[in-house]
C-alpha cells in the first residue's frame, strides 16, 4: 500500500521553478530521506506534501485519496477544504523550529489537537499522551511550558504532538538543524526508535550518516530535480552522478 504518492510535481515561485517534475512514492513502513544542498527544493517538496504550499502541477495522493489531481493540462486541482482537512489526519510534520504553542503546557500541546480536531475522548488522549511523553523521556515535563525546555526537549515534544494524531506518515523538515550539535543525538535516537517500530517517515536532513543508517531509500535533490535515488548504500556509498559525488564529498571529512 502506498501511503504517499506524488506524481510529476511542479512548483514555481514567480519565475523561479523550484520543483521540476518530481515523482516519489512512499510505502507503508518505509523510511525515505531526502538530502541535497540548500535551495535544492527539498523543503518545498515537503511543504507541498503537507499542504503548506500548493503544487502548480501534478498529483498528491494519500492512501489512494487525491489531495490534488492533475487535470488534462497537468495543473493540480485541489480538493475542497473539507476533503483536505480529512486528508490531514493521515500525516504529521515535525518542523525545524519546533513551532510548539508557547502559551500551552507540554501536555496541552500534545492533547489539544486530538481532542479538538480528532474529537477523541479526553481520558483516552491524556493516557496516550503520557505514554508518548514517557517514550520521549519527558514524563516529568508535562506541566512545563515550551520556553522552559531545551531545544532537544522541545523537538521531542513536537514529535509527541505529531504522533498523538496517530498519523500514517510522519514528515521531518530538518529536525536537528536548529539544535546545538550535542542535542542532535537525542532526536536522531527518537527517529531511529520510530523506524524500528515501522513508522512510515520522510525525513529532510543534512545528517548523512544518520540518513544512511535509518533509511530504506535515499533521494538526492539538486536544482529542483531528483538527481539520484536508491538504497542508502548505493546513493551514499557509491553515488553514480557527479553532482551527488560532489555534494557528498563536502560531508566526508
Amino acid at each position, binding site marked *: 500500500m502506498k501511503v504517499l504518492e506524488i506524481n510529476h510535481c511542479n512548483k514555481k515561485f514567480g519565475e523561479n521553478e523550484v520543483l521540476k517534475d518530481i515523482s516519489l512514492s512512499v510505502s507503508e513502513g518505509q523510511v525515505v530521506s531526502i538530502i541535497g544542498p540548500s535551495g535544492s527544493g527539498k523543503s518545498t517538496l515537503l511543504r507541498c506534501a503537507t499542504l503548506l504550499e500548493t503544487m502548480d502541477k501534478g498529483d498528491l495522493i494519500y492512501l489512494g485519496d487525491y489531495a490534488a489531481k492533475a487535470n488534462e493540462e497537468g495543473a493540480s486541482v485541489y480538493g475542497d477544504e473539507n476533503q483536505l482537512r480529512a486528508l490531514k489526519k493521515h500525516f504529521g510534520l515535525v518542523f525545524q*523550529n519546533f513551532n510548539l504553542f508557547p*502559551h500551552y503546557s507540554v501536555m496541552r500541546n500534545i492533547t489539544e489537537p486530538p481532542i479538538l480536531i480528532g474529537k477523541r475522548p479526553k481520558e483516552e488522549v491524556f493516557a496516550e499522551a503520557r505514554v508518548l511523553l514517557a517514550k520521549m523521556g519527558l514524563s516529568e515535563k508535562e506541566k512545563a511550558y515550551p520556553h522552559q525546555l531545551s531545544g532537544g526537549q522541545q523537538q521531542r515534544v513536537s514529535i509527541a504532538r505529531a504522533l498523538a494524531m496517530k498519523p500514517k506518515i510522519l514528515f521531518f523538515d530538518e529536525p536537528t538543524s536548529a539544535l546545538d550539535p550535542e542535542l542532535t543525538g537525542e532526536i536522531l535516537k527518537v527517529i531511529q526508535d520510530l523506524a524500528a517500530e515501522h513508522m512510515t517517515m520522510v525525513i529532510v536532513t543534512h545528517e548523512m550518516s544518520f540518513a544512511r543508517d535509518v533509511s530504506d531509500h535515499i533521494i538526492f535533490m539538486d536544482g529542483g530535480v531528483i538527481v539520484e535515488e536508491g538504497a542508502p548504500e548505493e546513493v551514499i556509498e557509491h553515488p553514480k552522478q557527479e553532482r551527488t559525488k560532489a555534494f557528498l564529498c563536502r560531508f566526508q571529512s
Partner: protein
Amino acid sequence: MGVAGYLNIAQQLGEGMLATLLIFVLTLVFSMPLGLLVAFARMSKWAPFGFLLHKDAGAVKGHGGHLRGGLAAFQPIQFLAKVFISILRGTPLMLQLLVVYFAPFYIFGISLSKGYRLIAVILGFSINYAAYFAEIYRSGIQSVPVGQYEAAAVLGYNKYQTFFKIVFPQMVKRILPPVTNEIITLVKDTAMAFVLNYTEMFTLAKQIAAAKTTIIPLFVAGAFYFVFNAVVAHVMERVEKALSYYR
C-alpha cells in the same frame, strides 16, 4: 479651605465622576471588539477582481493591461479600512465628536432628543478608539510567527480555531503595553465630552471653579484622573504578570 471644603467639592464632582466612568467603560466595551473587526478588515486580502489576473496573466500587457492589473490587485475591504483608520487618526477627536453629534440634524434633518448627547459621546469615542485599537491588534496579530499558523494548519485547525486558540492569546500578551497606553489616554480624553456639553467630571469642575472663583476643583479633578490612571496601570500590570507564565 479645610478638609471639609475639599470633601465638599469632591462630593459635588461625584456625579461627574460617575459620568466619566460611564464614558470610559462603554467606550472600552464597544471600541475593543470593533477594533478587532477593523483590524480584520485592514488585513483583508479579498480582491474581487483578482480573476482578471488568474487565467491569462501573460495576456495582460499592452493597451489597458496596466489598468487591468491595478484592478485585479484592488482590495476593497482593506482599502475602506485604511481610509477609515486614516480619517479617524488624522482628524481631531473633538471634531469627530461634533460631527457625530450634529451630523444627524445638519445632514439628514433628524432632530434628536437630549439623550442623544451621551450616545453621541460614546459613538464618537468608540469609533475613534476602534481605529487605534485596530492598528494595535494588527501589529500584535502580525507579530505572531508564521510557524504558529503552519503548525496549526498541519494539525488540522481551521481558520477560526487557529485564530481563537493559537493566535489571539499570543496577540493579547504582545499588545498589552500599547493597549495600556491607549486606555490611559482614554481616561484623560473623557474630558473632551465637554464639547457636547455632556456633564462629566471635568465639565463640572470647570463650572464649579468658575462659579466659586477658585481653582481647587481643577486640582481635585486632576487628582481624580491621576488616581484613576494609577488604578488602570496597576490592573494592567497584574494582567501582564498573569500572562508572564509563557514567552
